């Protein structure tokens, strides 16, 4: 088989490996009945997946009579594609866990059909924020002291700033309320 096809096959297999690894780790964590963030587990599995990928790519290039420069290119290519796909995988997984639109579809499906107001009652902003506060706490991004939430890590905060700036650049007004445009954003 041509080396180009071998690399493509390896990258496809790496995503199947990631899926299987994630299922195994997540099911094992659920069995242990400990508090966990499913997304954090997905991210850790995706990062771990780089190790077998690097190993397999290295083994593949070892058998080829190509220059070191070309070997580096193969490894760079494999890392780029794997991590971009793994990032998308984490997003797909997270969508099932957190996406508002998927949750709304689920609520409508359960009821058969819903009035706008009923949907709002079932899954309003309060419910939406409550779930996310719990998730951010589980992911060590925020912590609660005497009833007040404080930032524990700035990683997600800075990702949020970049995403918001990008949204503004694409001409979206994504401030949570119309009247707070200059309050800390």
């Amino acid at each position: 088989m041509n080396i180009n096809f071998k690399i493509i096959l390896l990258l496809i297999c790496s995503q199947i490996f990631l899926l299987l690894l994630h299922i195994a780790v997540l099911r094992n964590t659920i069995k242990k009945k400990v508090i966990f963030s499913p997304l954090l587990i997905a991210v850790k599995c995706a990062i771990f997946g780089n190790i077998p990928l690097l190993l397999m790519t290295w083994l593949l290039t070892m058998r080829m009579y190509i220059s070191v420069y070309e070997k580096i290119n193969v490894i760079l290519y494999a890392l780029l594609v794997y991590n971009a796909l793994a990032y998308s995988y984490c997003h797909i997984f997270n969508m099932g866990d957190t996406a508002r639109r998927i949750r709304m579809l689920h609520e409508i499906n359960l009821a058969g059909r819903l009035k706008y107001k009923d949907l709002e009652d079932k899954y309003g902003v309060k419910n939406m924020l409550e779930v996310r506060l719990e998730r951010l706490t589980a992911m060590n991004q925020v912590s609660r002291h005497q009833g007040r939430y404080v930032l524990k890590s700035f990683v997600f905060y800075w990702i949020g700033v970049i995403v918001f700036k990008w949204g503004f650049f694409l001409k979206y007004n994504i401030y949570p309320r119309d009247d707070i445009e200059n309050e800390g954003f």
Partner: protein
Amino acid sequence: MDSYIICCGVLLFFICFLIHIIIWRLQHPKRQISTLFILFLLFPILFYISIHIFYTLFNIQNVITRNVFSLNIGELLQVYLLHYALSLAYIFSYPAAQAGCPSFVILMVIKSSMPRGVTKDEIYSYCSEKKLFGPRVHDLIDENLVVDKNGWLELTKKGYLLLKVFIFLRKIFSLPVGQG
């Protein structure tokens, strides 16, 4: 492998990315996610076909046609795989920029109150139903996932199918459905 393949894949992605920025800055398409998919996933194929047509019909030979036709099928697939991997990564990040991810809103509200911190009620007071809830229902209708029948919201076949995919994914992970 030549670095040319990596450059081609990245370049193809950035061409689509640039077209996306130009379109969005001019006017937001009605079906944004579908448009993004069409732009990023179909454009490279159409680009290749159009080069092929120009090359065969008009025998136009320039740097682009020469370089594109110097790639064998395996290399071409590698270019497309890299482009699609980068495109998918962007497409899945896009909804947060479009719709204002509530988790990021919470973090921004907390950051603006540091070091004192905020209570749950203070966070709620920063977020309106109008901004975080309403537009998402309209997105579902625009994407033809939900239909509004005389004030009643009902799933379309497309919406039902999408939901089933996510329910299936949740089940294989042994996670409860509908807690997002």
